[in-house]
């Protein structure tokens, strides 16, 4: 142990360049395997970020990024002067907050309770079935919802009818848009997201449970005092990632659920940008769409930084 500490101290004394060289020499196979990931990250994640510059241009696909006319903050000014933007932001934020508040805890709870199922076969079957909806497309999920909630033949309205009520066209009610959206989000993602927590639970030292049992803890107490703290790092990490995606609503799902009746709650930044950039009868305005998305990304980035700081301060865990 002493020798090891001495070695670490002598390694620290080496200059950074030397240390890196030594490390590269020692672990070259690992670094080699890292190259594809780095290349992919640069090409498909970092590189395209440069394209955001079109938010400051009047972008023309023919002239390209370097040839298009530079217009500075024109699109951003236009965006902040747009009287409709306030409503779009409000709809987007409400939907996103609901998604985080309602959707986020479900997989955590699910994994905690699934962990308590004694029979392995049942546990595995439930887990497999729970993440199946993740692989079903948004179009299919929404049409299932339309069928279930159909005012004439949907099972929900048939029940309402049987109970003496009047049928409700849930898919056309502005007040029902958000609950249905959140329900679909939970249905589609909870099983898949739970895999992360289930994996984290599997990594908890069994000795901790044994010690808790010796101390007389019941199952609820073990769940609360052993399992939950054991996965808290994963939970906080996922929470920070979720906050980063707070403005990223599922555009496909919204477009499929969107109609004239629920537009007052369903119209969000993404649907508006989609109309301007891709459904425009005139010349497509990609620059304005990018400007709106850039502002959205900056706000999301700021939220991630804040959430990371808060997590570090109050839970002594952070993402970066």
């Amino acid at each position, binding site marked *: 142990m002493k020798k090891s500490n001495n070695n670490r101290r002598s390694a620290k004394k080496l200059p950074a360049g030397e240390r890196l060289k030594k490390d590269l020499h020692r672990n070259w196979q690992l670094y080699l395997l890292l190259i594809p990931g780095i*290349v992919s990250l640069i*090409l498909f994640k970092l590189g395209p970020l440069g394209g955001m510059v079109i938010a400051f241009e009047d972008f023309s696909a*023919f002239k390209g990024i370097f040839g298009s006319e530079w217009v500075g903050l024109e699109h951003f000014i*236009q965006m902040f002067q747009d009287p409709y933007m306030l409503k779009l932001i409000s709809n987007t934020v409400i939907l996103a907050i609901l998604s985080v508040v309602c959707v986020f805890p479900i997989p955590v709870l699910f994994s905690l309770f699934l962990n308590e199922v004694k029979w392995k076969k049942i546990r595995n079957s439930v887990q497999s079935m729970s993440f199946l909806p993740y692989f079903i497309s948004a179009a299919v999920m929404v049409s299932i919802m339309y069928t279930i909630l159909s005012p004439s033949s949907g099972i929900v309205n048939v029940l309402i009818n049987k109970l003496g009520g009047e049928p409700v066209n849930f898919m056309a009610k502005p007040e029902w848009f958000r609950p249905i959206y959140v329900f679909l989000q939970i249905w589609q993602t909870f099983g898949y997201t739970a895999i992360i927590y289930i994996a984290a639970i599997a990594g908890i030292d069994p000795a901790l449970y044994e010690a808790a049992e010796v101390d007389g803890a019941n199952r609820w107490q073990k769940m609360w005092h052993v399992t939950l703290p054991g996965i808290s790092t994963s939970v906080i990490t996922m929470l920070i990632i979720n906050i980063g995606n707070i403005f990223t609503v599922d555009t496909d799902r919204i477009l499929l659920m969107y109609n*004239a009746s629920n537009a007052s709650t369903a119209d969000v930044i993404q649907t508006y940008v989609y109309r301007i950039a891709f459904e*425009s009868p*005139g010349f*497509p305005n990609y620059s304005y769409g990018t400007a709106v998305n850039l502002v959205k990304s900056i706000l999301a980035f700021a939220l991630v930084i804040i959430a990371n700081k808060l997590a570090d301060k109050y839970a002594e865990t952070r993402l970066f």
Partner: protein
Amino acid sequence: MRKRRAAALILAAVMTAGSIAGCGGNADGGTSGGDSAGGTETAGGSADSYTMFMRSQYHDWIEELNWYDVAEEKTGITVEYVDGPEEIADTYTEVDQRIASGTLPDATMCKLSQAKVYGSQGAFVDLAPYLEKYAPNYLAYIEANPDYAAYVTDENGAIYGLVKESPIFADLIGYRADQFAEAGIDAAAVKTVDDFTEALRSLKAYYGKDNPNYYPLSGRESALRFAAWFGAASYVDENGSGGIYYRYEKDNSFNIKAEGAYKWIETMKTWYDEGLINPSWVEGTNGEGDWESQMLEGNASVFYDYYNRAEWFMSNGGPESDPDYDMQVLDFLQDENGNVMKVTHSLLYGSDCCIAVNAACDEETIAAVLKFLDFFYTEEGMTLANWGVEGESFATAEDGSRQYTADYTTEESKAAGEKRWSFLSDRLTVCKPVDQEAFYSWNTDLIAEAANRCFVDENFLDRPVIVYTTEQEEQLSNLIAAVYESECSGLTNFIVGNTELNEENWNAFVEEMDALGLSQIEEIQAEAYRNTFQ
């Protein structure tokens, strides 16, 4: 150890190659290359063929046309189509992508705005000088139609894209004549909106008493299509503009500031409250399939939709589901004074379905494109595209009039992909003038009669073709993206009762729309009208 190192090396190499495999690009830059390799270059040598980017569905339909094969034979020019997406909006997006990646074929289908903007930047050929050289008949048509010339020519006199002529038609009111008779309704007596509402009430009372899913009036997409019946369609003329005219010249055309607009929504609310109109349709959740099922299964009796839909129901299961099934077409409705309530109709020229030529093409390829299009502006070409081949698809009577000898139903019911005579002009095949008489005649007797009866000038509102500048189009597109959705949402909320319909709320709604940009839209439209015609 060596094996492990070798495996790491190979794995890393494969993964890196995989990562960059999708990053291929066209080193040429410009707009040539890619799919045009077999077109521009080949055509450069022979000029007997060129490549063209086209919406895949339109290409599929072209492949079925007998007369198109004859045209290729007559001109000696073959078009090699490069399939785009199935959806039209995606097709235009792919034009942008192809321009950006330099993979645009020799010619392309695009929006007129794309042709004008990219053309002025150098992506498309200015066809004006070449028309004189290679397309004298097309040029004669342009000169004879100054509104067409104004529409396709940009502010510098260049023509970067050519648009097709479109048939003039409006939506028609289809109804189940058998159900009307059974319910004791005299269709000929349905003259006004009030008569229409009464007919719906009679139908509801008769068929709805045992069927809770029966709503006499149904449809697809937006139900906000009855404004013209109340004199509340959007417009633009020398006195100004009302409502959103740009993009909504025919369908979903309304002007909430018109005198009849309140009455329109009030009437629709009555229909909704009394169960005379399918509530899902009003609420925006009645898909095309739902509507078709309702009409075929007897859960609806009346619609106001595309001109040939009455025939569609007759030949797509109506009589099979009910032997008495008989779909007919009502006259357009009248006001209290017996004057027809004029309806909106399609425009003669539209900004969609424009043809532009890649600037990277050599002159021989440009000539091939224009010579091919020019053929359709000759007498021979016009006859071929509108009537087909004499003796095979039509015959000429002694008085010089023509009649189809090919049977509409037989030809149009052929399986997809099978060759046929077809003269439907509601899509892009080539730029060509439309013979309205031929267009109306190429239908079953039911629709041909209805079209000839209803599609007369006296029944149509004035729908001028307006030339917008690129800047105006950009402003309008941005404003409409917010205003139109809000208008539809607000009007629907009035009809379904989410917002109480009273004068105070109505005025507040109009003010809100103005604040969102409706009045600005109207100003831009009026200005564009003045620029076009004054």
